[in-house]
Each structure stands twice: as structure tokens, then as C-alpha cells.
């Protein structure tokens, strides 16, 4: 056997793990349930006729399986996660503990309101914090994530325009926007028109003004932008948007740069979603759940989705029907009352930081990004001059002629124990690398990051192409064949006979 090879294919702590379905031991079971006893069923002859096909495993085998899987994941708990525009900050464990208090975690959403006044008060308190931080008067709490918040906001705008008796058909979106922005606008039946960026990486104000007319429903801006920049002409943008009778939507994914220092309401924003899973530390969980409350201006508030939380004579109350005060609500966007478990975590985070700490966190996020920028700008190619906000954008000019692409550079970071930055987004520059360190990192951690990135950049320029194109070498897997995965999709496990049959087809 060659050096480094093992009998099992395992590498010490990296243990190869089969699929649950390949571990089946019929008769094993990870739960003990009481016997149902005899009874006469009421299924009307609709009982299941065939086995489900689930594997049997004991509890220790299940724990071991998922523990081994967990060891194949990178996470914030393990190291810096500088994924630009995603705000991978520390996820406090206090939040987890509090979300699990039985008085929160074990509440049924359809309990009579008299039995859930504490939960409703929690939602109300969180809404208050959000209103204060944004300087915006109303909030729709139910959207489940950022993109869902965008959908909510765009629908609210459409409903407000309908109520004004106006048919406008276009939404303007900067070319640097996240893909969910145009996707959402399209879902509400709008044509999407890109607004180009100028040489400074900001929205071209002259072009925006030129394009604004009475057919434009909304301008959908991300501020700070996905280039990591504050839109310094935002007040002029707002004025122009409003002069055209359109609404000003803001994607609040990057609120972490300005929370506590700048209120979007003071910038002329009519509608903005927040990502509690970014700015307010609720865990990303490997792809959700998130929470995307939408802040609304006075004019848009009447169209907010159901349910509404209102103060009544007998305490807090949920308005679950589009009638009376809520007659103009756009309807429902989600079951029940939003991502309550995320609300508990976000409020615990806010109370821990306080108004002072939220501002300090924003400042630290911006300072850390500028520190990384200063540490890298002479060896990588910065797309737009700083200062940046909480993230900075590089492109691949510094790799020109090396045969190394942004993706290769990212994969080499993996071997160094770093999670790569966001790559190939935004699309306004070639081979984008968007780095967001967040306020959670210590200076020591930032220094390590800068040192490794510098060394990699030097190595790339030194012509060690194969080092990059062959990376990663030390991760649980080397590069995966995504083309085959998409061309011949295998999306579930099948028993061996079935797999063989399928292959023969």
C-alpha cells in the first residue's frame, strides 16, 4: 500500500461513511414506543400496503453516522467563513438555549391568544427593535428568508400601485444585484431592467434618472451594495425614484455594515427586508431556516401580509383575516406567524449587544473589512477603491496570465483551512472574490487570513499553477464532477437491483 493509503479508506479523523440506506439492519430501531394495543381502525380501507423501505438502525449507529457526517463540514464554529454578502458571524449559544425554553419551543401556533401573550410580546418587542434600528414605521414579520422578504416587498409595492390605480410594469435592478432580486420581481409579473454601475462601482445616477418614468414600479437597490460600497448618491436616487412615483426597495442583506449608525428610513427607503440569519446572528444551519422581516413605510404598511400583530383591549392579538383594518393586506405568505424560533434568537442577540453593541458590531465589521482590504490590496486586484463597508470586492486581474481562475484560488484556500470567500458574485467584475470577515473575528484571526491570502497570491503569481488547479487535496473530497451530476442526475438512493435496472435502461 502506498504511503498515506489505508485499508478502510479512512484517514484518522476523516472516516468514510456509507448512506443510511446502506447500513440497514432489519430489526434494529432507534426508538422504543409503547404498544398500540388492539383497536378498530378508521382508515376506510386506505392502509398502506407496501413497506416504506426505511433502514433500521439503533440509536448509537444513528449518532455515529451523523457525527461522522458533521466532521466533513466546515462551519463558523471551526474557523473564519468570509462569504461575502452572507454575514457569517458567530452564532451565540445563549440564543439556542432560549429558543428551546418550553414556553417558546412548545407553543402550538393555534393556541388561543390568551395563552401566548408572552410569545406575542416577544414578536412585538423584536418588531420595535427593528423599527428603531431602521427608522421605518412598520414591519411584516412572516417572510421566511431574504428572498421571501423580497417577494413580500415587491407584492406589497404592486398592491399599493394597484390601489393607486396605476399599472406600472418594470422594476429596475442594478447589475450588481443578487440573483434573487430579479427573480422575485419576475415572480410578481414585472419586467426587470438592469441599471449599470458606474466606474466607481455605484449605480449610475444619470442612467437611473434617464430610465425612471411612470412605467417603473420600483427601484430595487442593495445598500451597502454587493460590491461592499455605500451608495453615496442614495439620497439623490431616492428623490428621483419618488419624483417618478415609484417605490424605493432596499435589499437589506448588508445591513450589518450600518446597523446602529444609519437608518434606512432616513435614506428615503420605502421597503426593505432584513435577514435575521445574517445581521442578527441566527444560525444559517447549512442552508436555513432563515427569517426575512420586511420593513415598510407608512404608505405601504396597509398592504402588509397576514397575520398582523395588533394591540387590543385584552392584550396582543393576531389579525388573521383580510378585513377591517387589514382589508388591504396582500394575503398570507407563510403558515402561521413567521419564523418564531428565529425571532427568539434574534431578540436574544439584540438584547445581548444592546443599541451600543449593535453599533459597535457594525463598526467592527467595517473596520475588519478595511483592515483586510489594506492587507491585501497590493497583492490582489481591488475592483473599486475603498474605504469599503463590511466587505470588499476583488477580481481576477491579479491572476492574469497565470492560468489560475478564481475558483482555483478558492479551492487552494480550502487546503489552508479557510473557507473561501463568495466567488463569481457580483457579476459586474470578472472572477469576483467578495470577502466579508464580520465583526466576530479577532485581529489574530484576520492576520492569519491576510498572511495566507498574501502567500497564496504570491504563489499564484510565481506560476505554481498546478498547486491551484489541483486543489483541494486535503479536504474530505477533491473537486466534484458537477457536470455529470447535472447531466445524469442521481437524486436519491435506490436499492442495488433497482439501480442496476435503471443503468440497463
Amino acid at each position, binding site marked *: 500500500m502506498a504511503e498515506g493509503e489505508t485499508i478502510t479508506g479512512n484517514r484518522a479523523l476523516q472516516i468514510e461513511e456509507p*448512506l*443510511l440506506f446502506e447500513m440497514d439492519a432489519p430489526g434494529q430501531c*432507534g426508538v422504543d*414506543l409503547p404498544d398500540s394495543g388492539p*383497536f378498530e381502525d*378508521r382508515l*376506510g380501507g386506505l392502509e*398502506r400496503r*407496501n413497506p416504506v423501505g*426505511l*433502514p*433500521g438502525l439503533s440509536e448509537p449507529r444513528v*449518532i455515529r453516522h*451523523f457525527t461522522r457526517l*458533521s466532521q*466533513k*463540514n466546515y462551519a463558523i464554529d471551526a474557523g473564519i*467563513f468570509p462569504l461575502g454578502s452572507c454575514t457569517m458571524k458567530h*452564532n*451565540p449559544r445563549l440564543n439556542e438555549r*432560549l429558543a428551546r425554553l418550553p414556553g417558546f419551543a*412548545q407553543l*402550538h*401556533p393555534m*393556541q388561543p391568544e390568551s*395563552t401566548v401573550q408572552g410569545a406575542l*410580546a416577544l414578536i412585538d418587542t423584536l418588531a420595535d427593535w427593528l423599527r428603531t434600528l431602521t427608522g421605518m414605521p412598520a414591519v411584516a414579520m412572516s417572510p421566511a*428568508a431574504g428572498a421571501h422578504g423580497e417577494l413580500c416587498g415587491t407584492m406589497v409595492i404592486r398592491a399599493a400601485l394597484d390601489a393607486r390605480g396605476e399599472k406600472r410594469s418594470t422594476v429596475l435592478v442594478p447589475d450588481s444585484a443578487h440573483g434573487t432580486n430579479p427573480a422575485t420581481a419576475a415572480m410578481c409579473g414585472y419586467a426587470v431592467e438592469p441599471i449599470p454601475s458606474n466606474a466607481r462601482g455605484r449605480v449610475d445616477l444619470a442612467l437611473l434618472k434617464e430610465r425612471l418614468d411612470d412605467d417603473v414600479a420600483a427601484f430595487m437597490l442593495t445598500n451597502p451594495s454587493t460590491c461592499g460600497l*455605500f451608495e453615496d448618491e*442614495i439620497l439623490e436616487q431616492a428623490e428621483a425614484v419618488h419624483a417618478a412615483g415609484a417605490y424605493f426597495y432596499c435589499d437589506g442583506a448588508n445591513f450589518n455594515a450600518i446597523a446602529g449608525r444609519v437608518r434606512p428610513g432616513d435614506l428615503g427607503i420605502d421597503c426593505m427586508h432584513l*435577514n435575521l440569519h445574517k445581521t442578527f446572528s441566527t*444560525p*444559517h444551519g447549512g*442552508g*436555513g431556516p*432563515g427569517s426575512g422581516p420586511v420593513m415598510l413605510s407608512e404608505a405601504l404598511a396597509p398592504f402588509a401580509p397576514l397575520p398582523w400583530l395588533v394591540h387590543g383591549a385584552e392584550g396582543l392579538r393576531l389579525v388573521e383575516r383580510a378585513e377591517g383594518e387589514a382589508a388591504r393586506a*396582500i*394575503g398570507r405568505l*407563510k*403558515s402561521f*406567524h413567521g*419564523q*418564531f*424560533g428565529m425571532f427568539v434568537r434574534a431578540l*436574544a442577540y439584540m*438584547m*445581548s449587544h444592546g443599541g451600543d453593541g449593535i453599533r459597535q458590531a457594525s463598526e467592527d465589521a467595517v473596520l*475588519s473589512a*478595511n*483592515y483586510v482590504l*489594506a492587507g491585501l490590496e497590493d497583492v490582489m486586484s481591488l475592483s473599486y477603491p475603498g474605504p469599503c463597508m463590511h466587505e470588499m470586492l476583488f477580481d481576477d486581474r491579479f491572476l492574469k496570465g497565470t492560468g489560475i481562475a478564481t475558483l482555483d484560488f478558492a479551492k487552494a484556500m*480550502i487546503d489552508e483551512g479557510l473557507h473561501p470567500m463568495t466567488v463569481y458574485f457580483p457579476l459586474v467584475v470578472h472572477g469576483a472574490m467578495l470577502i466579508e470577515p464580520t*465583526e466576530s473575528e*479577532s485581529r489574530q484571526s484576520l492576520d492569519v487570513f491576510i498572511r495566507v491570502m498574501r502567500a497564496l497570491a504570491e504563489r499564484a503569481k510565481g506560476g505554481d499553477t498546478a498547486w491551484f488547479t489541483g486543489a483541494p487535496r486535503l*479536504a474530505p*473530497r477533491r473537486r*466534484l464532477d458537477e457536470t455529470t*451530476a447535472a447531466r445524469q442526475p442521481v*437524486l436519491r*438512493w435506490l436499492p442495488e437491483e433497482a439501480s442496476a435496472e435503471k443503468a440497463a435502461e
Partner: protein
Amino acid sequence: MRYLGLTDADRRAMLAACGAADIDALYRDVPKSAVLADPLDLPLHAGEMEVERALAALAACNLSAADAPCFLGAGAYRHHVPAAVDYIIQRGEFLTAYTPYQPEIAQGTLQYLFEFQTQVALICGMEIASASHYDGATACAEAALMARRIAKRSRVVVSGGVHPHYRGVTETYFRWLGDGLDLLPPSLGDEDLAACIDGDTAAVMVQNPDVFGRLRDLAPLAEACHEAGALLIVAVAEPVSLGLVRPPGEMGADIVAAEGQPVGNGLNFGGPYLGLMATRQRFVRQLPGRIAGQTIDADGRRGWVLTLSAREQHIRREKAASTNSGLCALAFCVHMALLGEEGFRALARLNHARAVALADALAAVDGVTVENDTFFNEFTIRLPGPAAPVADAMAERGILGGVPASRLFPGVEDLADCLVVCATETVSDDDIAALTAALKEFV
């Protein structure tokens, strides 16, 4: 401040390294008039102990379903979640990871998503499944949109037995698509869905068991749909039922849209939950949301990636998808792994047994009638008068005695006296006795 990584000395040194005189210099692009002069009117930072005290006080104002005989269902179900589930989902490698954009260091997430997809396909009796949606309601809305894309027709007929929130969200999603939705009225009578199908019908959406708890053989409806070139969408609010009841796939469903909360996930006052969606292999390219797929790495070893979604690997324009419900899918996957074939079927049986015991006990109460001929773990009872005040009175007594149908379908006269009651494995004989006694008193 305990979550911040920098000291004041760090901040000074870092500002110097940036060539900035102070932090304001880094914010110089913010228009002067928009810079907050004064601190916001918010409390100052607080220690763990203080925050815990404040939030625990709010939690204490609520009646926890764990402390009460609880018969509430209607789209959210209280089941025992094994301790191992909560332990696994709190492992930082799962909890604090992002969407698996870098598959080489996210195989843990990707493998469990692939396992989850397989579990969902199996219990639904379908061929493939997605890697989760926000919740059951949004999954229904997405399923209806998917059916329109497949059938290239515009209308979707929605049964009156579909959960009002699933109907409501679908209605909102359809609001600006032109007239696309036929919502049948909720009722405890029969409805003839097949008669609603015409040449412009993309799909019929039904729920099984329906919101009143009734089961139905969907095979004839599936046949009618398919004959007319339409799809059958089956919504499932209580996936535990699939351990005992014939799955939609075996009755001819084309798309299954379901709520996944009851497996592995707590009630959490309504969220976060997770949406499940399963379909036929031939519709794979129309399946929305994220999907994990199997492939090999450069050394030929098996591994997993997000697939059919180069569209979202790099959050590309127009094609991006969003954060969904990854960690809830993990909770589902771990619970299902613990249950296995034997446990899943035994759990479903036990739920049905408890509900049968409850139905028999309530049917014996004077003035109470059980409306269902068939049910799984939930059914509808009719009281001699309005049900909502009875539910409120029982809550005062610390009994969560059922969901008034008037909360689900306000204003529907025939339902005003109805209460939807549910019994899972968590309901004890004492709980049933408490509900029976309360109903005797209040009815």
C-alpha cells in the same frame, strides 16, 4: 462585549493600518444628513444572565403545550422528538455552516440532504424529492406553479379540504398571474373535484388527510386528472400518517407537497418548519428549490453536490434560489433514521390508536358528534353551539382542547360549531379524560 473579537487597542492599531483617523473616516460615503447624531433609543448591552432572565420571563407568560393536555393539530403536530435529534442539530458543524457552496468541505450537509430526499421520496411513494422548502404552505404554492409549467395550462383547482394557510399562500402567490385559481369552499360535505376539471386545468390540489382529518382514496381523482391532461397535487400536513396510510404516490399523485415539521421538529409557535416536495422522475427539471445529487470527485470517490442548480451554485443572476430549511431537514432526517421502517410504522399506528380512543371517548359525550367516518390522528367534532368560546373556556382551565374550525375558516356558518381535535402519541388516557370532562361541563 462578549461576541466581539476586537479590543480597543486592536481597533486603534487597525485604524492606523487602514490609514483612517477614526471610524467615521471609513463611513465617509454615507451622506452627512443621514448619519445618526445620537445613539438610538435602545437598551444597552446585557450579560447572559440578564438576557436569560428577561426572555425566560416572557416564556413564563405562555401556556406551554407540554404542560397541558394538548389536542391541537391543524397543520402543526406535537410529537415526541428524541433527544438525539436535538443533540445532532446543535453540532456546530451543522448548525453554523452555510448553504453548501463549496462541496468539498460540505459533504456532511450534502450527504444528509441526499438521505433526506430519499426518505421523503420513500414515505410519499414518489420517485424523487427536493432538499426542502420554507414550509408546507409555500411548498403547496410552489407545487401549483410547477404544475402550471409542466401542463402549460393556467388553472389550478384547490379542494375545500386543503389547509386554509396552504390555500392562502397559494392564492397570494397566484395573485398577479391572472385568474388561475379555483378555490372550492370548505365544507364537511362531499365535493366533486373531477367535475371542476376542464381543458385549461393544470392541476387539482387535494389534501390527505384533509384539514378536517378525513381520508380519501385519490386513485379515481388521479385517473380523472390524467385523462384530462391535468396533474394531481396532494398536500400532506401530517407526514406521520404516511407510516400507516396509503401514500399519495400509490394513488397516482404527480406532485406531493407536505409539511415536514411533525418529524423531528418542535412546534415553535409555528416556525421554523420545513416544506417537503416529491414528484415523478420525469418532472425533475421542473422541481423547484435546491436538490443534492450524487457524483464522484477527482479521485473517483463518491460524493454529493447541489445539482440541477448550477443556477444557484454561485448565486447567479435570475436563477438564484434562497435559504430554505436545511437544519429542519436535518432534524427530520435524524428522527426518521431513528424510527426506521419499524419505528415509523409503529409511531403512525400508535397515533391512529390514540385518535381512535379519543374519538370513542368524545362520541360518548352528550351533544358531541364526531363528523368523520375516516381519520388518521385528527378529526372534527360538532358541538351544540359555537366552538370558539368552548375552546377558550377550556384554555382557561389549562386544556388545549382543539382548533375551532372558525379560526381556520372564519365566517363559514356551517363550521362555526366545529372543533378539529388531534391525538398524537403524546396524548395520555388522563388527557383524554380531562378533555371529555371539560366538554361535558362546557357543552
